[in-house]
């Protein structure tokens, strides 16, 4: 049985990727087969923290309507079903298309009575694979300037479905926030590890994340990162109590972690005895226990 675990947190920069990368390595040290997935397509960093090279396995395309004016009868049906008005048609004119607001839903092609609309295939991003420190990597990246990472995340999750049987663990690193692409990334996972920091920002955004995970009924386990940067952690404990979520670990603020991060090396590899490395190994034990 493959265990799928998502690493999220709400707030940006709390250490999601650091935890995901080091946890993946910790599990691989325990002789498991591990796949680490970078689903933060609009700021992908897993390969950077792993110091790994990426190999493109495929392009991700989304539907882009291309209208054949020879076939178009200017009936306006396409514009009528385009709910965001990326297609507009008036009088005896051909439909006008605004590509920057098109969400690639394909409704226009579906209703066109003369099949004048075909798929021009808009490039949305890429899926990459890689390997480092005993961990297989699967990574998505959104093409710069594109607004929605949905197509990339959907494609990434499809790829995970195909290959997950080869692994004991799949760790999914999500983007910050509480939007639908975070939901897409965490869906079907057994547990969400919420990495947060002991500040009012951390607790505010953590609470929003837990609301999101409740929607899909995935349990949350809280990890406090950079513990000790402020005197106490009661802001996080309060959220944990209110939402009945367990705090499973605290990773201390650790200069070794920063040094390793700056060198593009996981702290667990560079400084296996550093306080944060010890904490991560312990998290691997806890996660193993949770998913038993």
């Amino acid at each position, binding site marked *: 049985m493959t265990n799928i675990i998502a690493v999220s947190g*709400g707030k940006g*920069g709390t250490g999601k990727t650091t935890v995901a990368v080091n946890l993946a390595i910790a599990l691989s040290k325990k002789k498991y087969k591990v796949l680490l997935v970078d689903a933060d397509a609009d*700021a992908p960093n897993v390969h950077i923290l792993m110091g790994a090279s990426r190999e493109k396995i495929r392009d991700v395309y989304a539907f882009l309507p291309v209208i054949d004016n020879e076939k178009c009868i200017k009936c306006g049906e396409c514009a009528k079903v385009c709910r965001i008005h990326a297609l507009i048609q008036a009088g005896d004119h051909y439909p006008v298309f605004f590509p920057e607001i098109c969400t690639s*839903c394909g409704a226009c092609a579906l209703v066109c009575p003369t099949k004048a609309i075909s798929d021009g295939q808009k490039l949305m991003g890429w899926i990459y694979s890689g390997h480092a420190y005993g961990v297989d990597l699967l990574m998505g990246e959104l093409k*710069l300037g594109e607004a929605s990472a949905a197509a990339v995340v959907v494609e990434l999750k499809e790829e995970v479905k195909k290959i997950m049987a080869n692994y004991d663990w799949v760790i999914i690193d999500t983007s910050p926030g509480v939007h639908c692409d975070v*939901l897409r990334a965490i869906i079907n996972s057994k547990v969400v590890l919420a990495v947060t920091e002991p500040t009012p920002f951390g607790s505010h955004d953590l609470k929003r994340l837990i609301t*999101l995970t409740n929607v899909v009924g995935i349990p949350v386990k809280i990890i406090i990162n950079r513990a000790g940067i402020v005197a106490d952690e009661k802001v996080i404990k309060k959220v944990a109590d209110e939402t009945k979520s367990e705090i499973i670990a605290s990773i201390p603020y650790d200069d070794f972690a920063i040094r390793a991060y700056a060198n593009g090396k996981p702290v667990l590899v560079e400084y296996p005895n550093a306080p944060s490395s010890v904490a991560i190994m312990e998290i691997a034990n806890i996660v193993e226990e949770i998913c038993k």
Partner: protein
Amino acid sequence: MTAKEIVIISAKGGVGKTTLSSSLVLELSKHISIVAVDTDVDAPNLGIVLGCNAERTIPVQASEKAFIDFEKCINCGLCAKHCKEGALEMIDGKLHFTYYLCEGCGVCSLVCPVKAIEIKRVESGIIKIGKSRYGFPCVTGELYVGESASGHIVASAKRFAQMEAWKHKAEILLIDGPPGSSCPTISSVTGSHYVILVTEPTPAALSDLDRAVGIARHFKIPHGIVINKSDLVPEFRDKVYKYAKTMNIEILGEIPYDKKVPEAIANERPIIEYAPNSPSAIAIKEIGLKVREIIIHKIKNA
């Protein structure tokens, strides 16, 4: 006359956007009439530091969703086949709908043979309008959890902020933006007059900085860099400088790593108020001077 918009972004999260913007807006408010705006609609935190109240809250109906009449549904699976968002799935011969994955494109309602699906407009977020504890107006956009219309909420927040600016005769909107480089970032940057890119000297932040620069360039908005926690990794500080030089981008200033900053956040105060003589507060005040110059020489005449 609309107010000019200065947006603070960073593709990477947690590099210090709100730390910089909360203090910067407070510093600038001593010299010019300003509105603080939070467009990090997923994780709006500026109001926490500035002590913003919500005198008015305005729900925004920015998205549409499918509503399924399961009494009419014959579980034919056609809608699931056409749903690009994965919101509709057939599980054991039954239609299953995940509301939060639906983007309301309406394809399902088009293909449904029994007309069991209706598309309806729904509330996707809220705009909070009020004042900070320092007196200047603040406007916060907040996306409801799991929603998809972040760009629309950002655009609404900016529109309401412009109205506040008009009411209070403010010249500048200082916008605390979201992380990432997708919809809410693009929406925050669109139509703005200057972009402040916050980064920190680490490999991941440098890679993400390049994405943020890409966004600013794509929309042809003038921009400058602030290096936060600048002494964290000296080699990478040099790399940020090298990058800025190659890309011909001005470095507006550096903020040293300062243990007073997390303390200020814990106390929900801008660092320039909480510890005005701390190294980071002094650095931000200097950046404030630079930004005022930019406002006078570059933005006002734009």
